[in-house]
Each structure stands twice: as C-alpha cells, then as structure tokens.
C-alpha cells in the first residue's frame, strides 16, 4: 500500500493526531492547533483518508447545530505516524550531533 507524500504540514497534522490517538478530532480544532488554513488542512485529511490512514465519522454535538465531521487515525495511520515521529526524532538527534562542536571527539 502506498503512503501519501509526507510534507511538513502533513507531519504537523499527524503529530496532533498521535497526541491523542483514540480521540475524534474536528476540522476547525485541528486547524487551530496546527495553524493550517482550511485550504491546506482538508487536502491533507482527504489524502490521509484516501490511503486509509484516517477514518471519519459524523457526530451530533448539540441540538440545532448540524452534525460535525470528525476524524481519527486508523491503526495503520497511527503506526505510520509513530514511525514517522521516531524517524524525525532520530533525524533531529543526528542533526544535533553533527552540529555539536568537536572539542571532545576524535578530532584531537
């Protein structure tokens, strides 16, 4: 199964989902948390759903207000998100090491 292209914005969205993997999230809530506009956020959500990494559900919240569309990572999506998170953490550590001054290493 192919995975969608993971842009920095997609990673930001995945990070938000992985914080509370079992919770259903609203579009506007995600937009506020990630700082992404609707025109950027929804294509990401739609792509994730297309690759079966995201599941959607209609939820009625209160009377007189239309039901809300909510989103949650599928197990496969959560797995991918965690893998990506681990990869980005190790990449960040490697980058930090590379930047560290070599006063104690083998350069002496």
């Amino acid at each position, binding site marked *: 199964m192919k995975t969608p292209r993971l842009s920095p914005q997609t990673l930001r969205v995945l990070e938000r989902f992985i914080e509370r993997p079992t919770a259903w999230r*609203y*579009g*506007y809530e995600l*937009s506020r948390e990630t700082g992404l*506009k*609707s*025109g*950027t956020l*929804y*294509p990401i*959500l*739609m792509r994730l759903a297309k690759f079966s990494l995201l599941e*959607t559900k209609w939820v009625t919240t209160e009377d007189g*207000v*239309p*039901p*809300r*569309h909510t989103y949650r990572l599928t197990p496969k999506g959560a797995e991918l998100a965690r893998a990506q998170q681990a990869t980005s953490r190790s990449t960040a550590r490697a980058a930090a090491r590379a930047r560290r001054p070599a006063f104690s290493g083998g350069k002496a």
Partner: protein
Amino acid sequence: MIPAAFPRSVAILLLRFAIWIAPHDTLDWGRGMLNELHHVEGNWSALIWAVGGAGVLAKHAVLALILPGSHRRTVSSASELFAKELPMRKATLTATAACIAASLLFFLAPVFRQAFQVSLAQWHDVFHVDQRWLGRGPDPELQALAQKAEQNHDAEALAFVAIRTENPSEAARLADEAVHLDANLTWVYAAVAVQYSYLSQIDRWVTDLKKYDPQNALPYFIVAEKIDIDAVSPKTNRPVFAKGIASGAESHENPIWQSAMAAAFLSPKLDTYLDRVKALDRKVLLRYHVDDPFQAMTDGYSWWRGLPSYSAWDSSRYAQSVFEAGEALEARGDREGALQKYSAAARFGQMMGSTDTFWVPRVAQEAYKRLASLSLQSANKEQSQLYAALADQADQTQKEEMVSRRNRFIGNEVSSWNAFLVRVSGVALLFSFGLLLVCAAGVIVRGKSLRLTALRPSPLTLGIGFTGALGTLLASAVLYVSYRPYSEIFQTFIRKGEDASLSDLASFLGATQIPLGADSFLGVYGAAYEFWGIVTVLCVLVLSFAVFLHFRHRRPAAASAV
C-alpha cells in the same frame, strides 16, 4: 456599512455553491467544512475558512471534469444523488433555457443579424492572412448581385458592382456594360478609374469622360496618375496598394503629364461624382434589399474622396512649377504675369479645397502669401491684407483637414469604442456559444442518448452551461446596443438620403475589421499570427492530453488482463 454577519452569510453561500459543483466523493468533506463554519470564531475568519474550503472543492470539481475516472460515484443510483439538489438543478436549467431563448430572440431582429455579421468582419483577416494585402477577394454577395444585374440589364446595379468589386478587369467590364446600357452613367468610368488607373481602358474612358463632363478636372488627374504609375512600374498591372511614391522626375518631365495637369489647373470645376455614387448606392441597395452596411461604404466616403491617390501630390508638384514660373516672371519685373500665375494657383487651391485633400490647402496658402507680397510691393495695402487673411484661412483649413484626416484614419473615439464593444461582444458570443455546445455534446456523449429524459448533466456541466447561456445573452445585448446607432445611420441614409453621419459609420465599420489584439490595421498580421499560435499550442495540448488519457486507460485494462 457591511452588516457584521454578512461575511458569514457569504461564506455559507460560497461553500454551498462549492458543494453543489463538487464531485460526489468529496461531498462529505464539503459538508464537514460547511458545518464547521458554525464553530469558527469571527465572521471574517468564517469567510476565510469558506474560501479555503471552496477552493479545495473547486479543484476537485475541475479534476473530475478533466479526469472523469478519478472521481467515481459511490451512490447506489443517480436519483439518490440528484434528489437533494433538485430545486437548484431545476432553477439552473430554467435560467439556462431562458437565457438561450432570449439570445435566440435577438436573432429575430434584422438589426441584430446585421450586427452579428459586422462583428464577424474582424475574423476575415485572421482566416485569410495570405490575402491580407490582396484585398478582400471575391465577395459572393456582390457576385450574386452582378449576375442579377446582368440578367435584368440593370445598368445602375452593374455600375454599383463595378465600383465595389476588387477584381480590376471585372470592374472594367461591368463599367463598360453599364455605360453601354445607359450613357448617363459615363461618370462610373471615373469612379472605377480612380481605383485602377493602370487599366488599359483608361485612355478610352478619359476621352468619353471629357465629352461627358468637359469642365471637370478629374479626367486630367486620372491621366496624370496613369503616367505616374507607368513611371514607377511601367507596363505592369499593379494594384493600387502596391504603388510606391513616384520619384517624380520622369512623370514630371513628361509633356502629357504637364499638359494634363495644366488642363486640370484651368478646369473650372472638380467633381469626383461622390454625390452620384451616394445616390446610386441608395437606389441599388433599396432595389435589391441589400442589408450589408459594408456595401454602402466605398473608399470615397472615408479616405480618397473619389480622387486618384496621386492627385494631391501631382497638384502640389505642378503648383510648385507654377510658383517657380511666377518667381521667374517677378525676377524679370513682370508683376502682372506673376500675379496671374499665383492667382491661377490660388483659384486651383480653392477648387481642390472642397475635396478635403492635405496638400492642396498648402498650395492655396502659398499662393495667397505670394499674392499678398506682390500687392504690398504694388503699395496696394488693402488687397495685401485681404490676401493675408485668405492665407490664414487656408492655413486654418489645412489644420482642420489634418485633424479630420487623422480622425478618419483612426476613427473618432466614440466609433472606435463602439467598434471595440462590437468586436468584444462578437468574440464573447462565439465563446459562450462554444461553451454551450461543448456542454451539450458532453451531456449527450455521457448520457449515450438524445432523449431529454436520459440526459443528466452534472452540477459542474450545468454551471458551465449556465455561464455559457448567460454569456450569450449578455454578449447579444451589448452587441445590439453598440451596433444599433450605426444601423440607424445606415437606414436613414438608404431611406432618406441623409449622409451627414456616414463618415461615423465608415470609421466604425473600418474599426470593426481590425481583429481584437491589433491596435490598428498595421497590427493585423501580428494579431493573426498570435491567434494561430495560440490555436496551435491548444491543439498540441489537447492532443497530448488525449494520448495521455488513452495510455492511462489502457494500463489498468492491461493489468486486469494479466
């Protein structure tokens, strides 16, 4: 002051519209965005939210249109899909049909049909780039009229066609036939000769014209022009546009040219027969119910005013020789002789002034200045002042003529603007109609049937179709309103003979022939090549896309076969 909730209302409308055109598999997402609007804080934030969401849905709608297979429907039946959108579909279909019907109603009006024809004139040079400098080619309507005229032995109609046809030998033949049938139409020789001074019949025609109207200077100008053309390009039948400006040396020294110009100088009058051309136009247009305003416009109305194209230049050159002769007489002390020479030049300038030429007012001005100077030398102050005033008047005439000529060349601003509107609305009409046709063809191809009940346009197709229908209606209305005043000028001329506004009509019709994108006749070539360049690029893109689609559909088929 904008009400606070206005942006939110716009946002709701925008998203609803986007949902309406969105492909089915994105409907949930669209409704999700719409319902989230209730939770977005701030009206302007809601609008920004809707703009972003609508953009996403619109992108998917366009993709679904281009790549239909990429957004397959998952609903169980079409009726389920359309059930919720029925009122909007019905309203759009009704509005589209109403727009198309209203546009077709415009075509019932003869004025509109005429306007539509005029709006198409701009395409002539685009589709006949190779004939751009060879004239407009055979005009079928004119050819049909010539046939009718020959069958009916209608001398006036034959003369009408002879003046207009762009085939010189045909013009000569028809002119001869017309004069053969009615000798009173001998002046038609002049009207044809001023356009084609290189015709072999010219010598015979000039003899006939001199007999027909002995006091007129026009035949002598025709003789002089023929010599000018022979000097530039001897023994070749070159069309008028290909003539260069003669150096003047040969023709100027030719005794026949000298005697022709001397005779023109001495002629008591100059009649270019423009009034007779107009009267003839009216009769023939009415008799044969010709409804084409272009047929009422000859070059005489707008540019040469019925004179051979070299006449002004010839007059100026000959006047110069008269001035030189006057100076020689002055130098010998023969003031009376010089006075006669200058007076002849002034009289000639006055006579030619009525033809609206550019050089001739200069001749008159120069002649009056010399006369004023001579009078001053003879201590005749009053006469000197009179001549000085006449010189000023000639100067003023020249300035006015320059403005008038410039306006005739570029057309006055109102005519240019109306011509622009006619051209734009003509293009918009064709484009909108094209959109409608493409939508209709798409719906029929998808529905695989011509039965109305089987045709189910998608919301996007319906939207584009409605846009096309609305565009057709608006373009028709603008075309009608922009053209109507000129139709009235044309009709008033034909019915009542009023020709005061014909120059406006000529300017307008001249400007309507310039394709959009070209700012003048000189830019027509560039505009035509740009147009064909764009068409070529579009064709290549469409072809590439078709090849892409072909291989895209073949690949899954091949995979499933494996």
